[in-house]
């Protein structure tokens, strides 16, 4: 009787053991690059892009290492069909309104339709920094907003 119970329990115990280990070995939450992840999430939700690139270009500017203040985004979406450049950029700006009014100081945008991207799949490059952030009294506030 006992033998039978133990035999039937063994698979259950193995399962429990496996589950317990799984519970203990939870993957670590990625808390790095919060602004970049938020930008990616918001653009994905708002514009359903076929292709999306979000580049943190803060290292190219006169801001502390690890900053998330200057970004370049490439959004390829059918949402842009029939829209002017200005209209497309406004859609992107609107999706990132909160970030642009707090921590994001500069946002370079490429907004293409899937056909345009297929024709010319090139990510534009940002011009070299001329050190404007060093003379910008609002930068400290923005950098602090990113940290909060």
């Amino acid at each position, binding site marked *: 009787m006992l033998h039978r119970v133990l035999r039937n329990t063994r698979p259950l115990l193995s399962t429990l053991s496996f589950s317990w280990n799984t519970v203990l070995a939870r993957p670590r939450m990625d808390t790095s690059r919060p602004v970049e992840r938020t930008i990616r999430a918001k653009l994905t939700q708002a514009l359903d892009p076929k292709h999306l690139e979000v580049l943190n270009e803060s290292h190219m500017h006169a801001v502390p290492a690890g900053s998330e203040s200057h970004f370049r985004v490439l959004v390829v979406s059918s949402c842009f069909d029939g829209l002017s*450049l*200005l209209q497309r*950029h*406004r859609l992107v700006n609107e999706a990132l309104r909160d970030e642009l009014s707090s921590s994001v100081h500069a*946002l370079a945008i490429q907004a293409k339709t899937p056909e345009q991207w297929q024709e010319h799949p090139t990510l534009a490059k940002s*011009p070299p920094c*001329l050190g404007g952030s060093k*003379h*910008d009294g609002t930068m400290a506030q923005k950098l602090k907003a990113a940290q909060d």
Partner: protein
Amino acid sequence: MSGLFRSVLRAVQVGAATCRPKNFDAHVSVVPARLFCASAGENDLGEMVKKDKVVVFMKGTPAQPMCGFSNAVVQILRMHGVENYASYNVLEDQDLRQGVKTFSNWPTIPQVFFNGEFVGGCDILLQMHQNGDLVEELKKLGIRSALLDVEKDEKSK
């Protein structure tokens, strides 16, 4: 030379050294910055953007831009021979800086206006330059792009 200017020059199909508009001066003339009254609001901005055919809100001045994106706008306009435009340095006036962002509902600087109408920032101006739209838009303002003369010279050779 930066990647930005390489791509700009490829679109133009001539080297920067040969792209010299008639009124080009090696010492760029500084358009005097017009003071923005701290207490002025949308009405004044409305007037400012209409007073001149081409108006640029930027960081720094055309002679000394303080931001790569603002510099790109200055360089693009210069390539088209547009030197006589109104420019306003937002780094000198935080009220102006915030005011223009609210006025145009656009979160970043630089900002370009043609005949009082908001055109866009550096990215849009660059794309307009690359796809030929900028030449057409300047034509509507009664400004002949210097690139048309360069193109004409190239064809006559």
